[in-house]
């Protein structure tokens, strides 16, 4: 018997009510091929789901939600003065990735991060790529996160980005492309780990039927990465995680990672700099700190160097860093390569430093500072996605097909007054994966954020955070805007 996922009022699904409203559209479906057949690697999951009852799944969903709540795996909602803690919505149907898909991603992400590190080193030193005209100088120097304080600063082993959280999406033909690189302080890895733990708890039977690559060693891998950064002078280095504090939306993750690694979680007020050496204040007196995995943005790191109104950072940290007495992960100034206009140059950057073509392509991107591109974009605002170059988290963007004419006119005016600040991309249909919504299985758009570590070598724990746009038809997966997440299984061959 062949399961047809395309619904028809004449022939209701033979597999019970769970899939009765599951439809296929032009976007790539993670579970079904266009003919409505389950993809080979999803067959076992599909077999399991079509005989499951919605009552049973609801029960498991509730168990999962409760597990998140009691463990305090929550985020704080900004702009809500109740200090409300919410759980990040979790969908219990795992997303599957095959071994061969993964190995391609692994090679592609390794290549990309290697090139980006070479690029950042280059632009803060001799700037070959600028002199050879591959990346325009005015573009680079106008990146919001370019830090002139980092010009000529030696970064130990030239490792600038040691943790990246690359956002990948899947096009209609099934190819993965990079949407964003997230080279500053990417978050979400704790959800990747927690999702796995909770899934194991509520769907234990499913793991017996699949060979899922483990991800639990992320903490060790991160610590090994930090170890690679330790200044040569540090004999037995001390590592810390620097958090903005309990009010930060990712605080749970900061504490989680510190515990996973067995290192101290510090706030700015726990640290001080004396004679260009960083210390933490302990009950046994001051203790020297050698490597800081900082989850505080550049702007807030050091009130003497950056924002003077910041209480989150440590006065004097930049000088201690420049003196080579402490290492930071990530380095200061890596955010320049997060600029969405600079993003368009990454394939050229890979070519320039490595002599290779990008293994994972970019999304086609129009630079609005280019007059030809600009005209094309202004003529097609209703079909394109326009993004502000320095924004993230799904803010500051226009999704053409879902926009009103008022919104389009407001973006038109913004683009014309400051074209460098915007880029445009075609409206992409993210792939869709089956999700348990209320009492049935429905497809929802997803992306994928693997976490790439760069220390002695590149390490990518097989998996990532699959974010889900839980609202029907929505393409926005950000947690701040109605997104959730699900466990991501990279299967063994």
């Amino acid at each position, binding site marked *: 018997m062949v399961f047809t996922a395309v619904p028809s009022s004449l022939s209701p699904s033979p597999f019970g009510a769970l899939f009765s409203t599951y439809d296929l559209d032009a976007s790539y479906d993670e579970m079904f091929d266009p003919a409505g057949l389950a993809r080979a690697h999803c067959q076992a999951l599909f077999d399991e789901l079509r005989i499951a009852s919605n009552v049973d799944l609801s029960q498991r969903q509730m168990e999962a939600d409760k597990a998140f*709540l*009691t*463990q*305090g795996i929550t985020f704080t909602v900004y702009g809500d003065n109740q200090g409300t803690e919410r759980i990040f919505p979790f969908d219990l149907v795992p997303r599957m990735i095959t071994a061969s898909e993964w190995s391609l991603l692994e090679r592609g992400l390794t290549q990309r991060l290697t090139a980006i590190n070479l690029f950042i080193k280059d632009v803060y030193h001799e700037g070959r790529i600028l002199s050879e005209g591959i990346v325009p100088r005015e573009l680079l120097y106008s990146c919001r996160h370019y830090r002139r304080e980092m010009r000529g600063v030696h970064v130990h082993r030239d490792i600038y980005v040691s943790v990246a959280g690359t956002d990948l999406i899947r096009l209609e033909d099934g190819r993965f492309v990079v949407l964003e690189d997230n080279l500053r302080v990417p978050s979400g890895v704790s959800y990747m780990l927690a999702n796995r733990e909770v899934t194991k708890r509520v769907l234990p039977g499913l793991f017996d039927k699949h060979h899922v690559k483990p991800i639990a060693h992320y903490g060790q891998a991160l610590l090994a990465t930090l170890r690679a950064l330790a200044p040569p002078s540090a004999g037995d280095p001390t590592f810390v*995680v620097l958090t903005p*504090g*309990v009010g930060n939306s990712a*605080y*749970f993750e900061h*504490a*989680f990672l*510190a*515990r996973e690694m067995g290192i*101290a*979680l*510090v*706030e700015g*007020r*726990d640290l*001080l700099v*004396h004679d260009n050496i960083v*210390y*933490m*204040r*302990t*009950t*046994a*007196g*001051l*203790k*020297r700190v050698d490597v800081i995995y900082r989850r505080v943005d550049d702007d807030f790191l050091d009130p003497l160097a950056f924002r003077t109104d910041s209480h989150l950072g440590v006065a004097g940290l930049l000088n201690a860093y420049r003196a080579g007495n402490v290492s930071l992960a990530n380095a200061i100034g890596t955010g320049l390569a997060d600029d969405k206009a600079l993003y368009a140059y990454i394939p050229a950057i890979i070519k320039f430093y490595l002599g290779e073509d990008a293994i994972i392509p970019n999304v086609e991107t129009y630079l609005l500072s280019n007059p030809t591109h600009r005209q094309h974009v202004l003529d097609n605002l209703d079909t394109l996605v326009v993004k502000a170059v320095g924004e993230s988290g799904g803010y500051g963007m226009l999704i053409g097909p879902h926009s009103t004419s008022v919104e389009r006119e407001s973006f038109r005016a913004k683009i014309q007054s400051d074209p460098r600040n915007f880029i445009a991309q075609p409206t992409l249909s993210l792939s869709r994966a089956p999700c348990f919504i209320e009492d049935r299985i429905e497809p929802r758009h997803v992306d994928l954020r693997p976490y790439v570590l760069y220390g002695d070598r590149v390490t990518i724990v097989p998996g990532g955070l699959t974010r889900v746009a839980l609202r029907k038809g929505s393409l926005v997966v950000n947690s701040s805007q109605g997104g959730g997440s699900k466990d991501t299984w990279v299967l063994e061959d």
Partner: protein
Amino acid sequence: MLLSRVADSLYWIGRYLERAERMARLIDVRLDLGLDRRPSGWNFSRLYAVARIDPPASLPENPSALVDALMFDTSRRDSVMACVNLARDNARQVREEITSEMWEQLNALFLRLKEVRAGSSGSARPHYISRLVVDGVHLFDGVTDETMGHGEGWQFLQLGRFLERAGATAALVDLHFNEGQLLPASHTEWLGLLRSCAALEAYCRCYTADLRPERIAEFLLLNSEFPRSVRFAAARVESALRAIAVLTARGAGGRAERMAGRLHASLDYGQVDEILSEDPHVYLETIARHCSQIHAAVYQSYVMYPIESALPA
């Protein structure tokens, strides 16, 4: 070695949970014994005095209003719920230092209290709520002892818990012996005092059910075996401080440790007839003062010390 901020948070988790438990017990016992019932209705002014809380302009007029105020009103720092919230806030800030089981236990207590408060009949069940809190704190203490290494962090938790206990128990005894106070020395009041310290059964095993003020004072102040006596608490404060001094390589004989030793010794060698025949109020006040001096000394040595004194050589 601990971050000073972390030590501070652990210390306060211990204090706040001890406070929450004590308050929950106190409310339960006084309502259960009807200690504040008058022919004209309820008058909770004594309960406020016993709990060392400044009474509001208008006192609650029935048990359910009392529960709303002293259990659930988070706008005041001394309600049970506020103490649990503060303990949890501190725990959230040291999530990486405490075990997941400890966090989950404390978080579960918080969530259950929140649930009861949101429910319609929450404040009509003071005994149930009180048990919830007492059991929740006991479970937390048990999980702490069984899952957390008994290192410096654990010692700071103990320090907070027992320092709070020593001071609060001394104050409670003081109120019952202090002449001119509101409390009449009735049998039920003495019963209430013992039960507020979870001490009734232990007392009876020691002295039989014959409740005599000087024996009660002796038991709650000077007994060396009962975990809620002031002497027992002082011994634990001293041993925690001694352990902390060793673990932080501060060397023995620091200020906090010396003061705790002195407090402990005065209780070790105290005589109840002397205490009562002189001025018990002065004696008990001295204990409370020693407790706050120990608190200040701990801060000076481990939390708020001047940087110049602490740079490595």
